[in-house]
């Protein structure tokens, strides 16, 4: 028992509910504190020498972009956990992460458009980076649609997991799309060597990103808890129907 890994110990949904119920308020609180601090730092940070105030959109756009990718990595890792290890919570995690990842991808696209208009003169251009993120958004929607279109829950989970794993090819495409004749700027933080941003702008960005990461974690935990409850309701209704049909059979005999 002492050699059990954390994922093995959390394989029991009841244990997961107890643990997640204890840590959820702390993660939510941490997210609120970090986002409040990040907002203060973002609005008091020095102006960008080229873009001026418009660069403040970066403090919401960049964390949303990182979480769009992280959300998909989580969907793919959970899908792998379902298909390879048959982990009981893997499908719950994948199902919970997809709509949250889609929301952050949507926010990345919208804030990018609102940043693009004043800087590039257009809300949208069919640029490799923008187009690949749009495809990621459609991939998220495809995962959600595929799952909801199949009534058999086990089949839906397996097919969605296969699509989730295949779709991971989009992550390196998005990462390297800025090298393919793109007008989108090169990575400034997540690059080899030191970040190319001055610390006075980098720190507010990192604090906002930490707050958004904590918020993503809180939303994902809450969505997983909801999904476990939804499956319990389904199991209880099935038990009710089986109990009623058993009684009817006894009465007939």
């Amino acid at each position, binding site marked *: 028992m002492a050699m059990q890994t954390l994922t093995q110990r959390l394989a029991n949904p009841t244990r997961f509910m107890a643990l997640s119920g204890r840590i959820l308020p702390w993660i939510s609180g941490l997210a609120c504190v970090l986002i409040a601090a990040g907002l203060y730092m973002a609005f008091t940070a020095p102006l960008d020498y080229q873009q001026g105030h*418009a660069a403040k*959109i970066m403090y919401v756009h960049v964390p*949303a972009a990182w979480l769009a990718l992280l959300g998909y990595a989580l969907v793919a890792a959970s899908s792998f956990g379902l298909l390879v290890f048959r982990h009981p919570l893997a499908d719950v995690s994948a199902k919970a992460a997809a709509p949250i990842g889609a929301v952050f991808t949507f*926010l990345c696209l919208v804030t990018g458009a609102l940043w693009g208009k004043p800087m590039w003169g257009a809300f949208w251009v069919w640029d490799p980076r923008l187009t690949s993120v749009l495809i990621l958004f459609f991939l998220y929607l495809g995962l959600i649609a595929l799952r909801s279109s199949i009534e058999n829950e086990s089949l839906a989970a397996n097919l969605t997991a296969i699509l989730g794993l295949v779709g991971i090819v989009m992550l390196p495409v998005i990462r390297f799309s800025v090298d393919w004749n793109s007008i989108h700027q090169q990575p400034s933080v997540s690059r080899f060597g030191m970040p190319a941003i001055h610390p006075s702008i980098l720190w507010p960005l990192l604090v906002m990103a930490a707050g958004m990461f904590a*918020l993503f974690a809180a939303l994902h935990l809450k969505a997983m808890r909801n999904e476990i*409850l939804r499956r319990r309701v389904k199991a209880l209704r099935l*038990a*009710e129907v089986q109990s009623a049909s058993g009684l009817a059979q006894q009465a007939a005999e």
Partner: protein
Amino acid sequence: MDLGPHAAFIWASYAVVALVLAGLATWLALDGRHQQRLIDELDARGIRRRSDRGRGQT
């Protein structure tokens, strides 16, 4: 706060992020409350999972 000539774009960005994330959090909170209410109703009718029958809980 003066945010220069592009203030509308900056405020719109922050507003859409705040509204969408608040909407998502509210939806998740309401969904969780709804599922818990359904379980409580089934529990009140005496419907329990086989694994819980011995322990007297849902």
